[in-house]
């Protein structure tokens, strides 16, 4: 049962990640209950949750499996549209008024749809070597955006009507998706609690996957494809696993995002938005899940904090981005910060060593199976 040093640090990393997310949730929730939270921050909570999930899931593709995906916003839009339509259909046709139930079904449906689309793209592309995924996902993002631009869905007379390219729906239909006007008349039902739970699910799924046998296989294909293949690892299968999981999570984030607003438009999910998520991932560190959580939060809040700069806001934002990039990659500064955090790290290390109960609990979360480790060794 002796834990290796690497394994201990993994467990510490997972504890810190969960503790940070759960702690932040309780602080914010108590601020909401005490009504001390500003409107501005309260309004950003759900979008922040969505961007965290987006960043973490993209990190799974880019950081863990080493494939470049430039169409992550496309999966988000699939989820957002699916969620909006499902929620609308549930209300209009089945009279489901329970918002929690509707939200759960819509998010699940958004995830499934995005997963299917992700699998369809992944099957041909992930068999290839090289940067094909980047090119194909880039095209996919644009294709999805142009498709929803000419997509019309509505409900009426107890059924769902849909048409593409031309609006050929009968008169008197309640529109759910109206071409360039996007998904319309959505009743916002997303809650901060739902966002928080979605983040937890994402973290459990991603951290589990990363630290599991499959995760090690995924990382092996990233680090050296030929070596992994020669060890009998099915490269396509494991790359697919990472890519489809990321697509499902992005779809779920999209559904939550879509149902947080009264309207969703195709122009929200452009190539730029995919790049935005990519910036979160790169800034947080490739393969660093906690880093993605922090950078997605910081970079979503930052433009709002900078409102005081008025016209120079985006300029200041860009300067801050560049400075952060420089500072986090500076060896001297990294040495200083690691020295600053050293006492904290050794505390956790000792805690994990002397409190097997805590270690055990975390192990469950981290998905470290003792036996499995042995098998690989």
């Amino acid at each position, binding site marked *: 049962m002796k834990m290796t040093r690497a394994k201990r640090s993994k467990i510490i990393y997972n504890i810190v990640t969960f503790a940070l997310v759960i702690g932040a949730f309780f602080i914010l929730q108590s601020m909401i209950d005490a009504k001390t939270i*500003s*409107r*501005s921050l*309260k*309004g*950003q909570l759900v*979008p922040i949750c969505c961007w965290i999930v987006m960043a973490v899931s993209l990190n799974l593709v880019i950081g863990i499996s080493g494939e470049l995906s430039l169409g992550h916003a496309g999966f988000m839009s699939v989820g957002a549209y699916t969620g909006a339509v499902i929620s609308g259909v549930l209300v209009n046709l089945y009279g489901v008024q329970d918002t929690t139930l509707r939200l759960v079904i819509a998010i699940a449906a958004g995830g499934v749809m995005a997963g299917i689309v992700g699998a369809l793209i992944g099957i041909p592309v992930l068999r290839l070597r090289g940067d094909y995924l980047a090119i194909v996902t880039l095209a996919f993002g644009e294709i999805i955006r*142009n498709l929803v*631009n*000419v997509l019309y869905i509505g409900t009426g007379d107890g059924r769902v009507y849909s048409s593409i390219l031309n*609006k050929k729906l009968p008169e008197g239909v309640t529109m759910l998706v109206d*071409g*360039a*006007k*996007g998904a*319309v*008349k959505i009743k*916002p039902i997303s809650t901060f609690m739902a966002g928080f739970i979605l983040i937890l699910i994402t973290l459990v799924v991603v951290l589990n996957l990363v630290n599991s046998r499959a995760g090690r296989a995924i990382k092996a294909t990233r680090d050296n494809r030929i070596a992994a293949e020669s060890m009998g690892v099915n490269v396509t299968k494991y790359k697919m696993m990472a890519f489809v999981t990321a697509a499902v999570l992005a779809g779920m984030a999209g559904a939550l*995002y879509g149902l947080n*607003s*009264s*309207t*969703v*438009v*195709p*122009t*929200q999910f452009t190539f730029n938005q995919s790049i935005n998520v990519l910036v979160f991932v790169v800034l947080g560190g490739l393969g660093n899940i906690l880093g993605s959580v922090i950078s997605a939060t910081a970079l979503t809040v930052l*433009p*709002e904090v900078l*409102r005081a700069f*008025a*016209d120079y*806001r*985006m300029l200041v934002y860009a300067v801050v981005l560049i400075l952060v990039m420089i500072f986090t990659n500076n060896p001297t500064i990294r040495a200083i910060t690691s020295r600053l955090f050293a006492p904290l790290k050794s505390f956790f290390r000792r805690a994990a060593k002397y409190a097997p109960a805590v270690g055990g609990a975390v192990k469950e979360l981290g998905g470290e199976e003792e036996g499995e480790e042995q098998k690989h060794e």
Partner: protein
Amino acid sequence: MKKLFALLLAAVMLMSVTTVFAEDDVITLKVAHIGPTTGAAALYGLATLHGAEIAVEEINAAGGKYRIELINEDDEHNVEKVINAYNAALDAGAQMILGTTTSKPCEAAGAQGYVDRVFFLTPSASSPAVTEDKDNVFQICFSDPNQGLASAQYIAGHSLGTKIAVIYNNADVYSTGIRDTFVAEAAKLGLEIVSETTFTDETTDFTVQVADAQNKGAEIVFLPMYYTPASLILKTAADKEYHPVFFGVDGMDGILSVEGFDTSLAEGVMLLTPFVATAQDDLTVSFVAKYQAAYNEIPIQFAADAYDGIYILIAAAEKAGITADMSAEEACELMIAAMLELQVSGLTGTMTWDETGAVSKTPMAATIVNGEYVFE
């Protein structure tokens, strides 16, 4: 000595004017302008902001009962960011909103405002979804369907021709909104749509669209779009020696100030617009002069809408009896009731409103002659 006396007298008079309302009686309204002041749609957000700023300066200088403190929040023409801008404005103490400038963000923020009970007066968000199912949102500009309707009726009523080509941006709410009602109304009025072609925001080459209209012998080309693509279409048509009547809507306003555009190409273009900067009435002349002095450019229709917007807000606030200590929620119901009884004459015409929040004013068609707008 005489001069000094006159100066003194003038000063005294000025004092007496400004002290008609003692400081206690002056009510300072906090109005938030929300619009895209950065990003791709910044042209429109800045225009509404500048228009509003000129009106606010005039009102605060005139020293009436009401003063305005203008708060500005940038929404980047983004449905997510607009909610942040709206919340930031309310955090800053805004009592009512002048905005938002563009349609989709206004739809999202207006829906949130409907739940929170916050009054919105949008200068330029013209999609019908902006006011639909929301009693708290009022428009100053025509709604898109009304523009499509009015354009078709104008073309049929003035017998400009019966063979029509429509070129529109199918990725744009404004463009598709006008096109939808135009096509429906044209069918009713016996106008024949011979060619219908589309483009998107990224399109820079209109050869296909113009050639289609030309080959099918369209006498009128209807252009429901903003002036930037319209200027390219006019250029393409001129290169092909194709000279139909080009008919635009209010987004066409500004075509004469496109940099590097040969304005002679716009000769004979007709457009439906509530405001032209070259009109000779006192209000327009003074507004355009002040705007040019302050921002060194000719105001577009968006600026005029926002300028009117501030005066409409003041008129409604006066009728509703809004005070400085009222919250946005308290002010909302009173403002809604006041708007329905209001009639305001401004740069963009004489306006009244009904429960739907849509404005009623008379559309005017202008023709470009010798590089200037001429009304009938």
